[in-house]
């Protein structure tokens, strides 16, 4: 069962001045212990502590660039054009992968050769690394997901064939490049929502999603919808979003559990890596006679 031929996963991280969070991101990727990881770190010439923070891990990047670029989408696009992996994904420099994610992704694509792109539920953390909520998504449906930008980007992993058929990230977007990309991929790609948590999405005051959603974000989403001739229904998007939130609230309230995360809410996300606790006893040998 040991797969000698694991697929190469190429992960691109665009980074610009997220020195507070970038180390957690990089560690969450490197501590996956996935042997065939190709990690591309594209820094946009950060001027804060970013470079100092990632200095210890720099040797483990397949590609590291630190120079002024034309924004996040350009950095990701450049990363993808350099990537050689069979499976592609990108992870923003404030988000985290959950333990075991890359293993799962490799195994899932192995077991499901027809699936082109997978995504999972979203786990929301705050600046203090505490889990503050979830998004529990319904099984994938092109009709819905095409209309409303609800696919959690950080949990998306797709095959190279999709990338080759529909191209790279559109550099002209500043905010909704993931939505644009996913709508394009949805044309022919077979999507799948996996019923587990794959990554954690950070909400903090300097995140793009919290600062630009109302301005650039809405304009760009409107632009995408007109570009692909997507017809929206009034209120329906809001209701859909509300339903997802409601499901997540009940998920937390009823202490439900899905693989990838322990049940409950308000616990520190670092905990799930099982950091050693020195004052507790270690494993003992079996004492069978």
């Amino acid at each position, binding site marked *: 069962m040991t797969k000698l031929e694991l697929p190469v996963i190429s992960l691109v991280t665009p980074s610009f001045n997220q020195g507070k969070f970038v180390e957690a991101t990089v560690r969450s990727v490197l501590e996956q212990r996935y*042997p065939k990881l190709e990690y591309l770190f594209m820094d946009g010439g950060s001027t804060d502590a970013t470079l100092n923070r990632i200095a210890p891990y720099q040797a483990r990047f397949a590609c590291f660039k630190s120079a002024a670029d034309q924004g996040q989408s350009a950095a990701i696009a450049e990363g993808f054009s350099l990537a050689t992996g069979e499976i592609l994904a990108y992870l923003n420099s404030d988000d985290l992968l959950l333990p075991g994610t890359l293993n*799962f992704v490799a*195994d899932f694509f192995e077991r499901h050769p027809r699936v082109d792109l997978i995504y999972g539920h979203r786990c929301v953390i705050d600046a203090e690394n505490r889990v503050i909520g979830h998004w529990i998504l319904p099984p994938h449906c092109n009709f819905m997901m095409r209309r409303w930008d609800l696919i959690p980007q950080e949990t998306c992993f797709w095959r190279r064939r999709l990338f080759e058929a529909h191209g790279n990230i559109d550099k002209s977007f500043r905010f909704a490049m993931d939505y644009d990309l996913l709508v394009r991929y949805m044309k022919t790609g077979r999507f799948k929502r996996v019923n587990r948590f794959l990554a954690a999405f950070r909400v903090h005051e300097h995140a793009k999603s919290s600062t630009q959603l109302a301005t650039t974000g809405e304009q760009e989403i409107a632009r995408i919808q007109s570009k692909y001739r997507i017809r929206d229904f009034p209120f329906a998007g809001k209701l859909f979003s509300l339903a997802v939130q409601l499901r997540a609230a009940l998920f937390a309230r009823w202490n439900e559990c899905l693989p*990838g995360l322990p049940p409950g809410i308000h616990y520190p996300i670092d905990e799930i890596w099982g950091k050693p*606790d020195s004052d507790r006893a270690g*494993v003992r*040998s*079996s004492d069978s006679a």
Partner: protein
Amino acid sequence: MKPGFSIAFLLGVPRSGTTLLSLLLNQHPSIYCPPEPWLLLGMDALGQVPLKHAADPPLVAVAIAEFLADRRVRALNAAAGSIYRQILEATGKSVFVDKTPRYYHSLDLVRSFLPESKVILLLRNPLDVAASYGQSWNVNLPELITRRTDSPFLFDYVLGFNRLIAFAEHNPVLMIHYEDLVASTDAEMNRIFAHLGLSGHTVSTEIAINSTEYAKTSFGDRKILTDRTVHQQSVNAYKTYFSRQELDILLGALGENLFERLGYGPCCAEVAGELNTPVPSNECVELLAVVEDYAAQRKAACEKPDSLGDLQEQLKQLTQHIDGLQDRNKALENQADQVQAGNDLLNEQLAQALERNTALDEQLHQAQARNKQLGEQIRALQHMGFRDRLRADWRYTKMFVKHRLYVALWRLANGPRKPPLPKITLVTPVFNGGEYIESTLRSVLFQDYPDLEYIIVDGASADHTLEIIERVRKDETLPNTISRIISEPDEGMYDAVAKGFSAATGEVFGYLNADDLLEAAALKRVGEYFAAHPKVSVIYHDDTVLVNAWKYPNVRQPKGIGTVDLLNQHILFQDGVFFRRQAYEAIGGIRRDLRLAGDYDLWLRLSAHCKLVRRPGHVSCFRIRPGQLSANMGAYYQEAATARRDFLRTVSPLRKLMWDRNFLIRLVRNFLKRLRVENDRLLFPIDFGNLPPPSRLLAGSEFGNPSSPIDGKPAERLLFSVPDTRFGEPEIHHIYLDTRHNIAVTHPPVGVERLDLLYRKHYSSPPTTIQEPQGSSPYRLVNHKRFWEKALLRLPVERVCRFLYDGWNDQTLAELKLVLKAAKVDIEAPLSCLDAGCFEGALLDRIRDATPWIASGLEPNEHAVERCREKGHPVWSGHAESALEIIPEHTRFDVIFLSQSIEHVGDPVNVLRRLRLLLAAGGVLVVSTPNLDSREIDWFGPTWAHWHPPYHRHIFSRKGLCALARKAGFRPVCFRTFSHCYWSSMSLAQNWVGLGGSVSHAVHFDGGIAIRAERSNFWHRLIWNRLGKGDYSFLAMRDDSDD
């Protein structure tokens, strides 16, 4: 000297006109007078070479002095003479005149040429000489004189005149005055020629100097080159040249006497007369002495070239001067530094001020911008039309609704807001309770409750009770403090309790006797319940009993105890009852006159006033000790009867009638209840048949905080107490139950060091015999089998099953394969497999022999690791918790098997989380551990072989194990339970000796036990294993989604 040759010397002070005279002499055909040979001065200084001379200069001087010795003057004389002669022969003349003005320095040598040679002394008025110095050489003699400068010009003026006149006075010298020479040249020249013994010759006053060698030399008077004739213009030149003061100085330098001797007395007198001051006589003597001294110094310095003399002095002075300058420089630099430092400070302050300024500027800008914005908003609002107003309202409404929606969702996620915890007042009456009071106090103060009021009422104890209380009060490590201590004589325990409650300020009351204990998190549970249920006034709990360090759960309190039960002598244990303040005050408080049954009276009256609510779990522990108040039960019941009578007197007959009716109903209900099967399989109540149990040690303490491994909340129910039944260690441990997840927790936990020590101690020499206890032992021969189970176990099935299988074989691999198969793992593939806790590698051997898997191990015990490696297995040494650090990166496993080790771990969640990172894509983690749902627990109770404290920290049920997997982020895939003859026989052996004895793992069981074990194993395989009630369980978990 040979005849026909003669030598003459022309002496005189410089600037006396000696050059003029020598030119005049040269006009005579027999005279040769070259310009200034300076020869004698050089001869005189023979051997005095400069310091830098290549030869050693002192040696040169000394050698020559030694060589010449006292022949010096004569030798020099002869040498000079021969030189003169040689030159004279070359010119073909007969008289050589040596004209060198400064010969006054070597008059001795000149004198040695007398009397053969002739000497001419040319004198001139000193004042004119001085004027000539000034005019021709720019030498200011008066200044030199006043400053007494060490200069050759001063020597000329002072020494020259003095020495020359003195020489002339004592030797045959022809003295010529310059004034006479220029006035009557012929007469004077004739005098000279006569003196030289030559014929007269008329000299011309026209001097054709250009034809002579005087034009070429640099010596002699250069001025004479411009004057073509002898003239008298220079006579008395001083009169116009010098000021009066300078004249005075010049006169004083030589003195009147010398002027007289030189023949210029009248001139001197005339000048003095003009000046109107007498010429000072002593000044010239002084000056002469000074100048002589200078000359002597110079001479000495020349004679001793090795001593640097005044040069050294000067050097020294210059060095000192330089040093002084350097010091000043340094001081200035210091000052500069200080100034610089001050400058820097000011600069810094300036920078800070500028920064502040910019910050303030920014703030100002922001404030202005905000101001502007607000102004615009105000303007917009003021000029808003009706439609805009409506639009704004609509926008606001939308925002409001959205906000409310989010708040509602938030509520939904977080549940209803928790009400604040009430203040709990706990009263402890104590009288001479020094033996147990400390653990009571600590068990209360150790509680993690934010609002506790703890009042201790002491009846003026005569022993060291108060000291202990004081010591505990000062213990900073406890989270709570004693609020109040009342110490005065009282009229018994209930008087003390009443006193305590009258001083109380809390919302919820309870009292704890001085030898009882609170269990972990008791107050929190009580407080939370009262906070969540405002209508409940009184609650009571199940109780535990502490005897000789063993803890037992007491018989369970039934639900819904009321006045009826209390009137019929049901006893409510006081330490588990808590009530609200208003209920206590409504019934008028506790009766102070009762000595023993005060609590009974209180419950009776409370039950008449409000409903009593039962809460599950244990909050307190009642200590049984010899000599306690409740030991005398007869007296207690008597007093209870009095209290009951008093109570009944106060209630109406109608109510009494109601209670009587209720009593009949209760009797019937109790009878029916007895027919029902008891459902609580983990209740092992106090074992009165084996009381008192043997006294045991407590490891850690009697109270503590056993917490659930899943969420860290307290495990609230006590199951039983047990010592080490494997090796017979005397320390006792309590087993608690986390009722939310069904996980048994051993308390107190044993530290890693102690566990390591125990393992090391028992690894090499485990006891091989069953150790039986002395005297009574609790839970001996516990047998909770149903009658049909007993019947089944009597059937001789072992005779059949011996042909079917061997129950004593190690079946771990078969079980593991079964579980993996059920988890949809392809077991025929070459799986990479990690056996975490592989011990001596028994499973690894089997895997190598029977499967295509590639197995490696992880084991903390070094001896066991060595054994494994001897067998050739790849085994890492270390705990599973540190597996990530030990096992090299990119080594990953399809199967990780934790065999009988998760129950030994302090923090099982983190162990699973870390092992999860070692799983390969699609890997499975399999855990095997004793099963809390085991049917054998029902049969054997606390004597079940797998309890095993302190080595087993947690015993998991299926629910607990699945919760553990989920907590670690896994999805539980397959749960199976199994049993083994060995463990059944171990349980049987242990059940036989009870908890006081110990049963080793290495024992070989005798026939009877083995047969019974085989029988029960058969039925387990047939029934219980399939129902999830086997002795131990396997759980396979995956790290993936279920689709």
